[in-house]
């Protein structure tokens, strides 16, 4: 690896009373693909935001290319060669792809103040094809492209100039499709290995980091707690060790299920018969008591819809969803028949952010709490309290607003809604998304416990390792059709599954 290109010394950052970075030291070299991994709140995004000019530090120094580095804006940083691709959408809607790519640079293509759009389109197309992207055209309005494609365009924009020395990829891959990710991986390897540039890859996806990074820095609670070299990352125990560093304590070996017992009672908990909905045709499913069925696939494969249909959210065109010989057509019917649903969109669908923890937890249980119309606040409080304790939801009172909770705790509340209701069937969509490792671990334990208690679980997930680790049966979908079913087995790997997804 090459010379030092960026040095960060004693970086300290606070947001009001919150300390985001305590005292971080980091050195980046040319040709390096540096992974930054950490839990939510570890500071991994914060440190790179400071380096790329997005936010100012509270104290600390940086040296870039041997000189003092104090960027005042992302624009300034980009001019000097440090570019950052953000997690959120960062393209300009309402204009073309080319206009997005060359935003601010229009005068390159203009004569006497009039921009030659065709010239811009051609330049855009050229640039895009150099990245190996085939399906995006410079002259198209950016709005017709999916979120993933727009991310790609953002990447192109960042690298439009030759002068990028350090590229920061911040949690970007979650937004990208398989193809997109491949393109990105190819790009960063090319930049690092062929052009001696530096990549900083911020993520919490262990597999990705282990595969593509040359070095790894682990952060926790605003401090660097560990640095791993490539050899150390290749080690068999690497995952375990990184997890330990991230969480700060020994979380034990157990993460996913350790048994391979995919038996269940044989009693039918939920059945979907010949279900037809939009592009889904004649879908059949039998979910049994004590069974965990996992659904996997790329986004848009239809598994999300299956979950919603099972809970009665969508009106199907044909077929039936049956439980206890009753047809389930609305969420209310689902709930009455002890089915619960945890939506992937936690903040916008699963929870009432402006309501208290208590109010959220008891919401599905209100009909059962209601005694001749009257609902006793004491009963509500007790019910919620039980769940808060059972889940160890971190709060100082049940009357706290859910919006003040961290992602992990919010997810606990989402779960608690259904345990409070004592639902027997739970459909969960991406149940551990955005949740810290410690909480994830306890959730997997809970799911396993539920299985033992005879509950039926339908788990939809984008994390293959989760499916492999937890499900009795894994159903893979692609283009609204089931492509393959896998049974739980110690030999099953993610690799086996992937080819049926894409």
């Amino acid at each position, binding site marked *: 690896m090459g010379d030092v290109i960026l040095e960060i010394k004693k970086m300290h950052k606070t947001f009001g009373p919150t300390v985001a970075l305590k005292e971080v030291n980091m050195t980046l070299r040319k040709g390096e693909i540096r992974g930054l991994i950490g839990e939510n709140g570890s500071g991994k995004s914060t440190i790179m935001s400071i380096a790329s000019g997005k936010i100012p530090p509270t104290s600390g120094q940086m040296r870039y290319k041997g000189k003092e580095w104090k960027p005042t804006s992302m*624009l300034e940083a980009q*001019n000097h060669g440090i570019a950052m691709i953000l997690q959120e959408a960062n393209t300009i809607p309402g204009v073309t792809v080319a206009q997005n790519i060359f*935003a*601010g*640079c*229009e*005068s*390159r293509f203009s004569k006497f103040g009039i921009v030659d759009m065709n010239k811009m389109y051609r*330049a855009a197309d*050229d*640039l895009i094809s*150099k*990245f190996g992207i085939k399906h995006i055209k410079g002259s198209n309005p950016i709005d017709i492209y999916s979120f993933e494609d727009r991310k790609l365009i953002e990447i192109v924009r960042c*690298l*439009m*100039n*030759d*002068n990028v020395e350090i590229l920061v990829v911040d949690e970007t891959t979650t937004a990208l499709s398989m193809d997109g990710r491949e393109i990105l991986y190819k790009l960063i390897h*090319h*930049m690092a290995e*062929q*052009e001696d540039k530096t990549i900083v890859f911020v993520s919490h996806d262990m597999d990705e980091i282990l595969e593509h990074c040359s070095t790894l820095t682990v952060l926790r609670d605003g401090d660097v707690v560990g640095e791993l070299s490539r050899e150390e990352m290749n080690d068999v125990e690497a995952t375990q060790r990184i997890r330990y560093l991230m969480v700060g304590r020994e979380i034990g070996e157990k993460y996913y299920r350790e048994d391979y017992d995919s038996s269940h009672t044989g009693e039918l908990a939920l059945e979907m018969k010949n279900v037809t909905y939009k592009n889904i045709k004649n879908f059949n499913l039998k979910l049994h008591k004590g069974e965990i069925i996992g659904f996997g696939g790329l986004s848009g494969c239809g598994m999300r819809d299956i979950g919603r249909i099972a809970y009665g959210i969508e009106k199907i065109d044909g077929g039936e969803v049956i439980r206890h010989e009753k047809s389930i057509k609305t969420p209310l019917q689902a709930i009455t028949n002890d089915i619960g649903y945890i939506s992937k969109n936690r903040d916008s669908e699963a929870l009432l952010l402006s309501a208290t923890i208590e109010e959220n937890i008891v919401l599905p249980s209100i009909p059962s709490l209601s005694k001749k119309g009257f609902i006793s606040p004491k009963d509500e409080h007790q019910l919620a309290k039980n769940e808060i304790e059972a889940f160890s939801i971190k709060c100082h009172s049940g009357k706290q607003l859910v919006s003040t909770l961290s992602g992990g705790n919010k997810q606990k509340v989402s779960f608690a809604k259904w345990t409070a209701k004592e639902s027997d069937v739970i459909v969960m969509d991406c149940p551990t998304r955005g949740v810290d490792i410690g909480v994830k671990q306890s959730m997997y334990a809970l799911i396993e416990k539920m299985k033992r208690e005879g509950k039926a679980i339908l788990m939809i997930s984008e994390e293959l390792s989760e499916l492999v680790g937890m499900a009795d049966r894994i159903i893979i979908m692609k283009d609204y059709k089931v492509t393959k079913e896998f049974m739980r087995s110690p030999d099953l790997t993610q690799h086996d599954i992937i080819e049926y997804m894409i």
Partner: protein
Amino acid sequence: MNSDIACMSVSYKKNMKNFKEDFIMKLLGKKLLTNVLAVLLVLTILTACATEDTTTDTNTDASDSNSQTNESSSEESTDTSNDETKGGKILFLSSNSSGAVYDFNIAFLDMWTAELGYTYEIVYGDGSNDPAGNLQAVKNAMTNDVVGLIAMQDGGISNILDEYPDLYVAGLATDMGSVYGPEGASASATTNDKFLGTVAGGYASGVDIGKMYFDDVVQKGYKKVAVAMFPGFAYPQYTIADQTFRAEVEEYNKTADEPIEVTGEEGTVLMFRPMDESFFNEPENQDLDAIVGLCAGQQFIYPALVSAIGNGLADPDTKLLTAGFQSDQALIDDVGTGIVQTLYLPNYEEIFFPLAMLDNAIQGKQYPDFEQSEVLDGVYITISSDEIMTNIEENSPIPNADMSKLSVTLEKGKQFLRRYNSDATYAELKEFMLSDAFSEKAYE
């Protein structure tokens, strides 16, 4: 990866800088603009309200009033023979908030209340004469020192009387239909001795109105006439006037050489909106000699008529007989010589009646011969010629609230107030109110 687009870092930087400046300017500009507009909005609202309101001060000092000086220059009401004059506030429930009538009333009250030692306050009556609305308006303005109410609207009078049993109430420019009319909601006011009667805006009875227009039509020799009027549920007297008019014509036609034709079965109703030109499209309304306008005709009929004449829909000689007064110069000039042949307006100076009745009652010096409240007819000023109009313009206070031209001067008026003249009687007041002092002859 090579990029074959050469980008001179200098121009790139400059573009970014321009872009940044541009962006910031736009942002600042937008913020600034929004704030300026918001401030402007508030300012215009405040200004709009302020301009109307130079006269709602409740000041007893006459030198503050905006009326012109008048001949009785007394600043204080010290020349009364009685040393315990009661003061207090008079509420004026007005049915308009601008215009010639409003300006006149304000000026008149300014002058007279100062003289008599009262203050006054304008209260805006409910736009639809809703009893509850009128009551609420009075309630909101009510304070301990209110002693009397001059009401231009009749909705809710008995409610007001019930609510404030010590309040004296007299009417202006209204026939108090809800009090005196058949099945009136405020009929209980007739036996309430705090209710002192009213002077109507013209004839109280629709029959008299009808006859008045009939006489005019006959006198002017019109042969084909249409009638247009305000809706009957708001102005029941107009319905009666219309019917009377037609009855009179029918009677007349029995013996006349040339019968008069009145178009339609009943008057065309103008639902509080000006007449539409299409009125003149109707076959029965072709070649009219005149239109009888039972409404404020200059506002509600005149424009359509002028336009129809201009379009050839109506005969250029079509005339208009109607009521009301608009101080617009063009309209003034038109009266008598142009389209409007006769303009009937009640004399605004009739506001003297309620004021006088109130003053006597408040001072505890009611007329000895006053027994029962009643509706007095308002005396019309009949403007039927250029000459009369000129007299009005020059000699009457009506067009521009010029208090120096009052025919009911302070001196004159005091004759009818018992605190100045202990011999004054109700009969004399009534005679005065119905005399030529309130017709066009006062200004010749």
